[in-house]
C-alpha cells in the first residue's frame, strides 16, 4: 500500500523496467493461493520460551495508492480452526472451548480504518480486529518490503506487519488457563498482493 513513487521507480529500475506513474488506488488480492502470505503468532510458554504458530486459511485484499497513501486499506478474513503449531495434540487442544473456542468463534476479521506513514518504508495501520465475537481497534506497525512487476506478467506489493494484542481485551483471558506469561500474543503478518 504504502510508499513513495520514488521508491517504486527505484524498485522498477532495479529490475531494469520502466514503471508507469500510478495515479489511482489499485486493488491487490493477497496471494494466499501461492502462500506468499502468512498470519503467524507467538506466545510465551510458561514464560520460558516463545511458541510459534500460524493460521493457514485466510483471504483478503488491499488497496494501494502511491500518490495518496493515507487511502491505503486492507481487509482480511481468517478461519480460526486453521490454527497450526505443528503439533496435532496441541492444535486440537487449543481449538477447544477452553482456549480459542473455534467452534463458537469460527472467524476473525481485520478491517483497516486509517493508514499513517511514519517513514519511507514504515507506517502505522489502525483497524478493527474482530476476534472471539468482539471487535476492538489495534494498531499494526507496517513495513513495506517491496513491490513492482513480477516475472510472470503481474504486479505485486508486499508488506509485513507486527502487532501485540492482549486476548483478554476480546474477552478471552488466556492467563486464566495458561498462566500469566500468556497475557500478550504477538502477531506477525506477511502479505504479498497481486494487482487485480
Amino acid at each position: 500500500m504504502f510508499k513513495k513513487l520514488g521508491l517504486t521507480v527505484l524498485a522498477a529500475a532495479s529490475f531494469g523496467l520502466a514503471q508507469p506513474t500510478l495515479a489511482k488506488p489499485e486493488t491487490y488480492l493477497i496471494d494466499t493461493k501461492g502462500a506468499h502470505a502468512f498470519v503467524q503468532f507467538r506466545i510465551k510458554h510458561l514464560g520460558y520460551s516463545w511458541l510459534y504458530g500460524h493460521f493457514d486459511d485466510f483471504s483478503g485484499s488491499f488497496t494501494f495508492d502511491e500518490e495518496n497513501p493515507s487511502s491505503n486499506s486492507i481487509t482480511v478474513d481468517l478461519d480460526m480452526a486453521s490454527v497450526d503449531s505443528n503439533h496435532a495434540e496441541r492444535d486440537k487442544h487449543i481449538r477447544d472451548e477452553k482456549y480459542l473456542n473455534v467452534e463458537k468463534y469460527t472467524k476473525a476479521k481485520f478491517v483497516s480504518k486509517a493508514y499513517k506513514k511514519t517513514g519511507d518504508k514504515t507506517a502505522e495501520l489502525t483497524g478493527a480486529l474482530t476476534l472471539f465475537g468482539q471487535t476492538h481497534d489495534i494498531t499494526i506497525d507496517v513495513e513495506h518490503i517491496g513491490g513492482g512487476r513480477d516475472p510472470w506478467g503481474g504486479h505485486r506489493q508486499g508488506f509485513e506487519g507486527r502487532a501485540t494484542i492482549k486476548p483478554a481485551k476480546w474477552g478471552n483471558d488466556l492467563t486464566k488457563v495458561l498462566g500469566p506469561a500468556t497475557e500478550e500474543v504477538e502477531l506477525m503478518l506477511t502479505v504479498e498482493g497481486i494487482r487485480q
Partner: protein
Amino acid sequence: MPLKNTAARFGAMTISLHWVMAMGIVGMFASGLWIERLDYYSELYQIVPHWHKSIGVVMVALMLMRLLWRLSHVYPSAISTHKPYEKIVSKIIQWIFYAAVLSMFASGYFITTAKGQPLIIFGDVSIPAIISSSANIEDIAGSVHKYSGFAIIGLAVLHALAALKHHFIDKDKTLLRMFGHH
C-alpha cells in the same frame, strides 16, 4: 477351568480377556474424561494422558488377540432359553463393541500423530506416525474418539444390565457362564 472354550462353556482365555478388557474400558473412559478436565498446571497433566495412551495400546493388542481367538476357536452356543431376538441383539452388540474398540485406537492414534509426531507409550516406546497432515485430521479423530467412547460405555451399560436381567429375572446362567460355570 480349561483354557479353551467348548460348545457349552467359556474357557479361561475368553473369560480373562473379557474381564480384563471390561476393567480396561471403564478405566480408559474415566481417564479420558479426566484428561479433558485436567488443568494445564496440574502435576498430572502429562502423566494421565501418557498412561491413557499406553493402556490404550495394550487394549487394542488384547482386542486383536480376542478377535483372533474368537475366530480360530469354538465359541459356546447361546443358552437355549434365550429368546431369538436376545441372541441376535447380543451378537450385534458384541461385534459393535469390537469395532468400537478398534475405532478408539485408530482415532486416538491420529489425535496424537496427525501432524507427524509419534505416539509414545510406556516412557519411550515410539509408534511412528503414518501421516503428516495440516488438514485438521486431529479434530476429526477427536470427534470420532469422543463419540466412539460414549458409544462403548453406553453399550457396556446395556450389556451389563442385560446380564443382570438374565441373572436376577430370567435366573439363567448367562452371567455365571462368564465366570466359568457350565
